[in-house]
């Protein structure tokens, strides 16, 4: 048996949303959202709480009816998939399990509904590390164990498309590393991995591509690297003698300068090399010259500042 490089499990298993909208009364939870989630990469789906991430995922799974537009998986509406768990594995709400049922019976009932063998139940229980508690009732599980059970259910049908809604919630640090590696591994096998989070820092470590939404609207749909480049401002921290004069020279050279903390300047519009050369030419001594990169978190905060539903109001 040969193992070539990872290829898509079945070509073109994309999630495609087209002008997707969802209205609850007067609120437009999802507003004309169009995007495409591709195989082979981890696509992060981020936005503040209440941005419409879960609603969008529920519409992908056919749980909620769109008020407008449509969304397909591999070109089909979810409800029309002949055996949906073989095509899409989803973890939406880890606690959505009957508390009196054992983990084993929960997974068995799901497997049977999609004609998946009972042997696969044991396999996925082992995969997520729950084999020892397979016979225990789910009601006694911690949130972290429920997350693992939900992931086991998503993997049951060995599907080419996987969706996880806030999967790291409730996981301990070890569990977080585990799921990060799991998602990256699934994508490396050529699967489509769509994972939502309100934590940009988590996505920074996992996602290759980002779909950013705020108040139900698409804000960005681009590579994680591009996202930082395009939305973030880099700036340079400068410390030195005669800061007032340096400030005037830099402004004269076209940079935006503002005073920083502890006798420093924050300079944008010129890179560190240009600043150093300018200072040298003018005979000004520099003590420190450091480029500051905006993090994904900063870029995300910048982008969603105006679209956060529930923001703590700061006393003026």
């Amino acid at each position, binding site marked *: 048996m040969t193992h070539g490089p990872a290829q898509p499990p079945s070509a073109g298993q994309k999630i495609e949303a087209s002008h997707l909208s969802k209205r609850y009364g007067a609120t437009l939870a999802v507003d004309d959202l169009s995007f495409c989630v591709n195989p082979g990469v981890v696509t992060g789906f981020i936005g503040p709480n209440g941005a419409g991430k879960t609603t969008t995922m529920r519409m992908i799974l056919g749980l909620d009816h769109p008020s407008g537009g449509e969304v397909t998986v591999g070109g089909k509406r979810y409800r029309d998939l002949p055996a949906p768990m073989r095509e899409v594995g989803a973890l939406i709400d880890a606690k959505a399990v009957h508390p009196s049922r054992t983990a084993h019976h929960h997974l068995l009932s799901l497997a049977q509904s999609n*004609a998946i063998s009972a042997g696969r139940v044991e396999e996925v229980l082992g995969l997520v590390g729950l084999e020892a508690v397979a016979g225990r009732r789910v009601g006694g599980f911690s949130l972290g164990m429920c997350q693992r059970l939900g992931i086991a259910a998503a993997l049951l049908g060995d599907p080419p498309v996987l969706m996880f809604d806030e999967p790291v919630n409730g996981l301990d640090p070890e569990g977080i590393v585990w799921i990060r590696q799991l998602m990256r591994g699934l994508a490396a096998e050529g699967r489509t991995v769509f994972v939502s989070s309100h934590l940009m820092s988590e996505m920074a470590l996992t996602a290759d591509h980002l779909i950013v939404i705020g108040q139900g609207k698409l804000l960005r749909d681009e590579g994680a690297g591009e996202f930082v480049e395009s939305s973030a401002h880099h700036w340079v921290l400068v410390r030195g003698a005669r800061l007032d004069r340096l400030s005037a020279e830099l402004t004269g050279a076209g940079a935006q300068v503002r005073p920083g903390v502890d006798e420093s300047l924050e300079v944008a519009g010129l890179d560190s090399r240009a600043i150093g050369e300018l200072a040298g030419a003018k005979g000004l001594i520099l003590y420190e010259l450091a480029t500051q990169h905006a993090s994904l978190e900063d870029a995300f905060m910048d982008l969603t500042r105006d679209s956060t539903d529930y923001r703590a109001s700061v006393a003026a």
Partner: protein
Amino acid sequence: MTTATTTTAGLTRPAVSAREYRAARFTDALRSEWTKARTVPSTWWALVAAVVLGIGLGALISALAAHQYAKGLASARAAWDPTSVSSAGLAIAQLAIGVLGVLIVTSEYSSGAIRTGLTAVPRRGRFLAAKAVVVAGLTFVAVEVTAFTAFFIGQALISGHAPTASLGETDVLRALVGCGLEGALIGLFGLALGGLVRNAAGAITVLVAVLWVLPGVAAALPASIQHPVEKFWPTQAGGQVTDVIRQANTLPAWAGFGVMFLFVAIALSAAFFTLNRRDA
């Protein structure tokens, strides 16, 4: 770097392999629903309650009624139906059966498992039909076991005090089989209510109202209202199939059963309609 031979999802074959599988069928959904029903304790509690109450109360009522028989009026003796006396306990068993139908669906709403279930079986009609077959099958078997056991115990207790019935007599077997059929309809009615109301307390309240409270209220009304209600109220009409001797103001056995069948079919259709239209 070595070539990855084990994949993340724990497959013994690479994920690239041909994705051949057979489409899920109704029987798969049915098997799944059966697993769900048998793996929660509430199912078995409801069934044990139905069987114990049905047999126990049936025996008690048979013994008491048999001893009253000698003292009764001639009209009461003419209406003496030993088969329906021995299955009188089923009226209480029906509550447990109806609650079972309610819980099969409301427990999924309260835990959120309905979303997991509908993700696995997104065709709403198939999802509800599989639940209906499981509920109907479980309740039919449980009530039949109860009805026949209560019949033999009841007739033994009545024997020597009042006339008894035997399986070979006209309509006795029909009445006993009718108990199971009526029980299945009540289970299905509970299922429909659970789907419509989506919460156990509300659905059980409606169930009790329809089964007992409303017919009870009608009994206190003038005959002009009371008689049509007795005759056509679905659960009253459905009960005719369990009687051997037809009482006044009642439909014939199968006509009455037909009324109840139609009523439950409408309730289930409404449940399907809301399940299909509402967001899960």
